[in-house]
């Protein structure tokens, strides 16, 4: 009886094993598919990995190029300012000389008037006086010249003011640089999670980056007086001269 019971149990186990094999038969192709998928995926992941390494490694160069642009524009701006200053100094000299000529001409005119009065009775001298007075004099054109000088000086000064764009764009570039650095940090972190690799050639990266406090990410070059007007209203409000509604309207 005991042998018969054992056999029954054996058959039950074999039956269970059969079920397992049957499931295994169905599972094997799935596992095979999974392995094929893994084989295909690994090179893809390696590609992504190397692409990340390459992209991340290029960031310092991009950052350097942005810094170089700022340096180059500052250099160019300084040269322009030097030239503009030289023009202003020359214009001042010319203006001074012309004013001096005008003053001397006016002095000469007064003396000439006295000479003329003394020679009125001399007919031959009168003819010469007439001929002399028909000649062009420099005095009438001087006010026009001085006006032109003033206009040129104003234009030159306006060039100087327009160069504020250099400071503002430098701050905008510094903000972009800061953003690039954030992206690089995220990529480097992702790389570490993927395969523990470290990005090389970053030793001096942080030293070269502009620090967060040295630029304004919202810097903008505009001819509009809107922002200054808003600031003025706010300053007035601090002196209790403006309503809250006006302030909110300007800064909305």
């Amino acid at each position, binding site marked *: 009886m005991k042998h018969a019971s054992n056999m029954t149990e054996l058959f039950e186990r074999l039956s269970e094993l059969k079920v397992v094999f049957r499931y295994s038969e169905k599972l094997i192709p799935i596992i095979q598919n999974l392995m094929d998928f893994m084989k295909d995926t690994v090179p893809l992941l390696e590609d992504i990995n190397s692409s990340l390494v390459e992209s991340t490694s290029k960031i310092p160069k991009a950052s350097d190029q942005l810094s170089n642009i700022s340096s180059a524009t500052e250099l160019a701006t*300084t040269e322009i300012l030097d030239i503009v200053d030289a023009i202003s100094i020359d214009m001042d000299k010319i203006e001074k000389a012309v004013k001096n000529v005008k003053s001397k001409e006016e002095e000469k005119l007064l003396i000439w008037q006295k000479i003329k009065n003394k020679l009125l009775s001399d007919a031959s001298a009168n003819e010469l006086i007439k001929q002399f007075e028909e000649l062009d004099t420099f005095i009438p054109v001087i006010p026009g010249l001085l006006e032109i000088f003033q206009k040129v000086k104003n234009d030159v000064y306006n060039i100087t003011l327009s160069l*504020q764009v250099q400071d503002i764009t430098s701050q905008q570039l510094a903000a972009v640089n800061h953003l690039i650095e954030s992206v690089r940090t995220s990529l480097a972190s992702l790389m570490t999670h993927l395969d523990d690799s470290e990005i090389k050639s970053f030793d001096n990266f942080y030293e070269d980056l502009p620090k967060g406090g040295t630029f304004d990410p919202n810097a*903008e070059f505009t001819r509009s007086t809107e922002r200054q007007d808003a600031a003025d209203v706010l300053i007035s409000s*601090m002196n209790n001269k403006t309503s809250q509604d006006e302030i909110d309207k300007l800064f909305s």
Partner: protein
Amino acid sequence: MSLKFLVVDDSLTMRRIVINSLRNLSYDNFVEAGDGKEALDKLLADQTINFVITDWNMPNVSGLELVKSIRSNDSLSKLSILMVTTRGVKEDIIEALNAKVNNYIVKPFTPQILKEKIDQIINPT
């Protein structure tokens, strides 16, 4: 009143533009500094400076920190301070005014605005 200006900006370009503008307004007495730290050193060394024109965003010591340092120093606290900066948002302006700047200009500035703000400081109504 004879004014001696300290122009503080980390941008050489901006310092030159501000100084050119001051010359255009017939002022001819100025010193320069590239950041707040250098500015403080110059202020402490030269007691004849009576007007500070400063940027906000600068390395080492910012313009705002410079203003706070000036206002908390007994020998400097009475100086006139004009902030000239790109920062034009409400919160920034309030922060600067709370730090006791006398007036505030948003870059880019015009010569008229610079004159107006200096006049408002030296001849308050």
